[in-house]
């Protein structure tokens, strides 16, 4: 039974990876059309996705590490190229996101998921201003805490709020380019 489950998981992961590769290919083609996110934004996103993947994998320790990394990458974000209003908004977002990341760095998994929900909102609002280099998918699970969203680089659903207990619960809500 467990072997079969493992096999299934492996297959679906390989599938996801392939799809991701395909997406990357498409992305590179119309890169020029895209709003470019800056390097600092990309570091934040990398850490955010490391956190998301850790929660998908029910890995508290890795999620905590990602939380610590996020605190650092949020701190080093450079706002200077944005307008005054945008800077104000970004300062607010970063302050909020930092607090949630700090809590994620020192909490048990259910707490980490609670904070991840708000953090996801913060990061979504952030890229609405900064843009991102790659296509992102805003995904949504109607079951967790009256409905909760998160961001992913892959179209395929891997639920960070439930992990292995409900890995595929959710749908793509929006494609962010």
């Amino acid at each position, binding site marked *: 039974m467990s072997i079969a489950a493992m096999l299934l998981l492996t297959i679906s992961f390989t599938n996801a990876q392939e799809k991701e590769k395909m997406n990357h290919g498409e992305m590179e083609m119309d890169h020029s059309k895209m709003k470019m996110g800056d390097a600092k934004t990309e570091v934040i996103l990398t850490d955010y996705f490391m956190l998301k993947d850790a929660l998908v994998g029910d890995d508290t320790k890795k999620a905590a590490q990602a939380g610590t990394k996020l605190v650092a990458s949020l701190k080093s974000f450079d706002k200077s190229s944005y307008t005054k209003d945008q800077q104000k908004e970004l300062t*607010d*977002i970063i*302050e*909020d996101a930092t607090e*949630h990341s700090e809590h994620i760095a020192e909490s048990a998994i259910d707490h980490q998921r*609670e904070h991840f929900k*708000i953090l996801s909102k*913060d990061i979504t*609002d952030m890229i609405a201003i900064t843009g991102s280099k790659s296509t992102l998918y805003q995904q949504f699970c109607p079951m967790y805490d009256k409905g909760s969203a998160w961001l992913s680089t892959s179209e395929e659903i891997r639920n960070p709020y439930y992990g292995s207990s409900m890995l595929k619960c959710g749908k793509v809500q929006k494609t962010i380019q």
Partner: protein
Amino acid sequence: MKKAIKIIAIIALVVLVGIQFVPTERNQSDIVPVTDFMLVNNVPKTIQKKLQVSCYDCHSNNTRYPWYNKVQPFTWFLEGHIKEGKAELNFNEWDSLSNRRKKSKLRSIIKQIESGEMPLDSYTLIHKDATFSKEETNEIINFITQLKDSL
């Protein structure tokens, strides 16, 4: 052997007396800033009282100190909690937060009360009136949820 215990007891006593003279900062203020949670929100009287009694000692600029606070090392223990509490949430400075930050804080308040993590056990042990009954928990969570959804 007996002598050793005696010496240790004397040292402990000296230390205990000595630390009583270490000055500590007190979290006390008569001024309620215009940014205070109660002033900017329409908070029902019963909830106001509950928040004051159960939360404001560590989450505002004014603590009603119990008598034993004057005795070390309890003072340090308390000061640590107050400092930490105010860093997480200061009701006196509520309105200086943006809507995003307020929502985050309100969410945390709900989760902390729901899970029974707040008020701290070490606090309710002495402040019996700070405990939330089941009805009080529901009442306060409803209020905070409404406030959160209105932002």
